[in-house]
């Protein structure tokens, strides 16, 4: 394990009069949530390894406003959006990569109308591109032959039609990708979207994440792969609720690639 990571900020680049290839939008979960921080680091290690000249906004980054917008607070959303756009435009950002499908969706689809036009990709798309360009290699490592099922994040899949990028990466690990009955455009939500992450669920007879976890368990996976920090939390909780945390891991696709490379 090599824990030294290089994470330059936009301000650093600015000071040197340079501009990075891409801005890594870390997102709130990626910055503050203990589980998600591991995903952030795994992705950064891959970026370092591929020698990608990236930067983060660091303390200049702020919530995209997605949870506020989906809760109905358009004011707060647009305040956040315009503040972020001001900073992004001041740094003349052209392209953004993020490991959070909610940030991805908002930056990509909802910022342009407010004056923020960037090329935005999800980290699974970005990693695929690095591999295609020969800048990053993938080894199966200890994932070779493992049964892995992928949970489609609503805001990556249905919302933006990105179904193959994460799957392509899993396949490159020489793993056995097993699909849930409900996958791709028919995938079931993990239960976190639309600001549900931040509140208790309404009364019902089950939690959504437990339902989804059961669907995942039907495939008898060794690993449940996720592409979203919120799905990751939800599925991890689901696995705990099912008392399966000893047997089954929930991992982000980037974490798997990094772990396979012993990063």
């Amino acid at each position, binding site marked *: 394990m090599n824990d030294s*990571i290089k994470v330059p900020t936009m301000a650093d680049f600015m000071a040197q009069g340079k501009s990075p290839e891409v801005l890594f939008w*870390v997102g*709130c979960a*990626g*910055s*503050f*949530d203990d589980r998600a*921080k591991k995903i*952030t680091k795994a992705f950064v290690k891959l970026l370092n390894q591929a020698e990608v000249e990236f930067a*983060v906004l*660091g*303390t200049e*980054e*702020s*919530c995209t*406003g997605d*949870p*506020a*917008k*989906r*809760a*109905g*607070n*358009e*004011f*707060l*959303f*647009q*305040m956040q*959006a*315009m503040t972020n756009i001001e900073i992004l435009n001041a740094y003349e950002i052209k392209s953004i990569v993020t490991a959070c499908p909610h940030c991805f*969706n908002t930056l990509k*689809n*909802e910022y342009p*109308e*407010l004056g923020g036009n960037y090329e935005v990709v999800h980290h699974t798309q970005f990693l695929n591109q690095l591999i295609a360009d020969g800048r990053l290699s993938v080894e199966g490592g200890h994932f070779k032959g493992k049964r892995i099922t992928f949970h489609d994040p*609503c805001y990556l899949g*249905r*919302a*933006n*039609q990105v179904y193959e990028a994460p799957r392509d990466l899993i396949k490159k690990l020489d793993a056995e990708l097993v699909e849930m009955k409900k996958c791709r*455009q*028919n995938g*079931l*939500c993990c*239960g*976190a*979207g639309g*600001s549900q992450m*931040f*509140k208790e*669920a*309404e*009364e*019902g*007879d*089950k939690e*959504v994440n437990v*339902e*989804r976890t059961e669907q995942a368990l039907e495939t008898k996976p060794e690993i449940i792969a996720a592409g979203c920090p919120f799905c990751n939390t939800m599925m991890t909780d689901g696995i705990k609720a099912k008392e399966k945390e000893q047997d089954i891991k929930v991992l982000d696709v980037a974490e798997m690639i990094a772990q396979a490379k012993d990063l």
Partner: protein
Amino acid sequence: MAYLPNFIFALILAYGIWFFARNIIRLKKIIAIGRDVDLSDNKGERWKNMAMIALGQSKMVARPLSGMLHIIVYIGFIIINIEVLEIIIDGIAGTHRIFSGIGPLYGVLIGVFEVFAILVFAAVIIFWTRRNISRIKRFWSPEMTKWPRNDANNILYFEMILMGLFLVMNATDTPFQEMNSGNWISQYIAPWFSSIDEGTLHYIERTAWWLHIIGILGFLNYLYYSKHLHILLAFPNTYYGSLQPKGQLDNLESVTNEVKLMMDPNADPFAAPADDQEAEPGKFGASDVQDLNWLQLMNAYTCTECGRCTSECPANQTGKKLSPRKIMMDTRDRLEEVGKAMLANNGEIVDDGKQLLDDHISREELWACTSCNACVEACPVSINPLSIIMDMRRYLVMEQSAAPSELNNMMTNIENNGAPWPYNQMDRLNWVKE
């Protein structure tokens, strides 16, 4: 007196068409209650969507069995209408099977109609069984109260009767049977009537003929009161359906103007709005149907109550009250209520002290949505229940400050710290060192 039947026919036909036209005009006026949105863009893509989704039924086959059966009924319905044209001409002109003059092709046409009639009949029986005997879950959700269930069955009975009448009409038409061309199916039904004398047979044939055309006019006019309106509205509805990625939620323009003003240090808060700017709309979000846009209202009238949305909804699957189909049905019910009162009041909306929010759709339903878009994806006619849910949340939050308290905390955090949790923005890069 010889022209009496022609006269009566023309009268019935005119009345049926007039009543239908009247309802369509009412419908247009009621949908126009909605806010305006400009959807005149991307005509090419829109036509394509309509051709694929409405005409081509591309979304129906996501569920293969009901999809295929529906396609049979749909094609049968369309092509048998060619026969109606003949009936209309015969009825007015007093002719009998006027198209039979075109030669052998006529036999082929009628033969095909007969095959479809029997297929439609069979499909409709399967549909009926699925609804009433197998009791497929999505047809028995709480919002499927008595009327929606009866409505669905009524349509099925209608179709059974119309198809039956069509076949009986052909089977008892002695000259047609003697012609022995095109009676592909009815030749097997004709023997049932073999013991009946010529006069009675003719009487049965005429009765079937009259009931058939009256039935079709009745069907046409039933549409407006039914979920069956989708056979017409599916076309405009898929044409105007969203072309954006499903994840994209519209940015409220009125908010943009205000936020810009707040953020611009040079802005003069007392400046008169520029001429091209619309007057400030008084209200953010939606608490009633007139706050929704016309497409959302057309969505409500287009809904077939099939429940594909609800059966895919994560909230509904886990026992929450939310059902996207109910959102659409409630919107239509409320719209009908507001619309009727408005039309009776010279086009002015009447304040009846009720609204869509709370009187029809509860807050509990609205807050259970994960905005996952499964309902939008599932809908075979491009309806977007999520957009209504979001507009109503906007009303609750921006007009009423009535978000659940945990969400208020989340929003306060974003306002103060730039994150939905109570962490300091200055700590945003701490993960690097941890």
